[in-house]
């Protein structure tokens, strides 16, 4: 493989890997606070993509009860992206109220919330299908304004073409990861979240309103899912209501690979899987998922606590 091709694959890998990372951070935040996996995370990812499509003035097809529906206004893409992510965050808060909180209030086994969140995921996905059908929707080509389709980072003779979308995706992801890392490590809310992650009861005895912070966590998690859903679908397309579910599984692979509940782990795991997939030759692109789950398999054999996870030491 010559160097320019290598570089091109590398940059593409970073771009998709960074979306994996912000998506997986949504899982990680909820997991580190409550010790549970929100299986509806992938469904919110899908929802975010549809929200943005609608807000950016996209028109829905002929299936579903909203056939040919279109919002009376059309927002610029950046506005649509932000608003859609906020909406995704709010839906996730609602989901927390309906699918998580009642179980938590009854001290139910954390395993049961897996089932309730999986149920919520199916409800969301089917609702989307019911409303707007199962077609593939593609964002208009000009959503990013008049930017060129691709930018050449090489020379005219040795081109390294990176799609503009990929660069934007990477940029947005870097901003998000930076903000979130700062939020967790250097703000009061972050300190309170760390305290809850350690021990919810003790945190409440230190004057922390844990229910409120759990809500904030779910909001951020949903916001991240919405943003990553939009970013992925703007670089490819919305491949039907179910496309978030398989992405959701990929996200699970990322957090297990990086170490459950570990923020650097989610970032590292995301980048690693993104890069690994980018180097799959295009003739074998059908095997991309096999590569990421193969990586996961090897990791579980070699280092079950994940890339950045701490070794669990059994205290006697």
């Amino acid at each position, binding site marked *: 493989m010559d160097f320019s091709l290598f570089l091109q694959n590398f940059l593409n890998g970073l771009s998709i890997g960074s979306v994996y990372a912000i998506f997986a951070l949504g899982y990680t935040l909820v997991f580190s606070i409550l010790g549970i996996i929100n299986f509806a995370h992938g469904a919110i990812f899908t929802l975010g993509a549809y929200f943005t499509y609608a807000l950016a003035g996209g028109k829905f097809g002929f299936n579903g009860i909203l056939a040919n529906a279109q919002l009376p206004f059309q927002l610029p893409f950046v506005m649509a992206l932000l608003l859609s992510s906020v909406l995704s965050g709010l839906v996730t808060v609602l989901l927390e109220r309906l699918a998580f909180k009642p179980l938590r209030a009854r001290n139910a086994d954390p395993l049961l919330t897996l089932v309730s969140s999986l149920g919520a995921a199916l409800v969301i996905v089917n609702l989307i299908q019911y409303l707007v059908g199962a077609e593939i929707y593609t964002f208009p080509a000009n959503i990013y304004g008049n930017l060129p389709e691709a930018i050449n980072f090489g020379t005219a003779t040795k081109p390294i073409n990176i799609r503009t979308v990929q660069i934007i995706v990477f940029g947005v992801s870097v901003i998000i990861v930076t903000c979130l890392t*700062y*939020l967790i490590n*250097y*703000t*009061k*809310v972050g*300190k*309170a979240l*760390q*305290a809850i992650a*350690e*021990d919810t*009861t*003790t*945190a*409440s*005895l*230190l*004057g*922390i*309103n*844990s229910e409120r912070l759990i809500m904030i966590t779910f909001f951020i998690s949903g916001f991240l899912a919405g943003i990553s859903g939009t970013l992925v679908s703007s670089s490819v397309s919305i491949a039907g209501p179910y496309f978030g579910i398989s992405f959701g599984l990929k996200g699970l692979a990322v957090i297990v690979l990086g170490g459950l509940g570990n923020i650097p782990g989610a970032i590292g795991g995301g980048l690693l899987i993104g890069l690994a997939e980018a180097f799959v030759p295009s003739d074998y692109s059908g095997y991309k998922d096999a590569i990421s789950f193969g990586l996961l398999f090897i990791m579980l054999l070699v280092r079950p606590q994940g890339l950045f996870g701490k070794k669990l030491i059994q205290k006697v």
Partner: protein
Amino acid sequence: MTKHQITPILQLNNITKKFGGLLAVDAVSFTVVQNEIFGLIGPNGAGKTTIFNMLSGLITPDLGQINYLGQDLTKLQSYQIAQRGIARTFQNLRLLGNLSALENVLVPCNVHHKTDFLADFLGLPKAQLAQKKTYSKAKELLDLVGLSDNIKQQANNFSYGDQRRLEIARALALEPKLLLLDEPAAGMNTSEKASLSDLIRQIRDQFNLTIILIEHHIPLVMSLCERIAVLDFGKLISLGEPEQVKNDPLVIEAYLGNE
């Protein structure tokens, strides 16, 4: 108690808690007055920690009211009780073990610094100033309990006695009016116990606290507490000054058994 004004800070009225068929706390009533060091003693399983759990809002009594400065605590959530100035330590330490000693103290400090989220996130000058103040306050409290070294180390790595003192510093960071200490001397040696006694008196005077103390080490309780309540099988069997309680036949029977 002559130097203290006699105003009640906490009144338990007919507090009852059942766990299944077990009456853990049975119609207990007592009043704690401002600035006193109040001892809560009794054999294992007498219901002492259950009372602390009800005072801090972790469990709700089945019957009765807890009046704290004019409010009924039984209707409040534990974080609200903490914000109103009741702090506690635990019999089996509950530190945030993976956070540093300093961070353990910072978390409750933050409750009293109401900077808004955006100012905090953007690191605006007023938020930075508030943060500086919290830091120096946290460090002062750690100094006070004798932990000035290694405060950036994980709390888990501290020795047992140091962890107990760290819990006290953390409780003080809430700026409490009422401090509940659950077996603060457990696992300490004689000299550590003596300095703990001094520390408890010192913080009571310095921060104008009222302290309720659960403790098994009777000499410590007798020398430190101004009044003592004795529980046995969930019932309050004796209440009064140390001398009075020590000679109460019911107390002697509870501790030594009836022969």
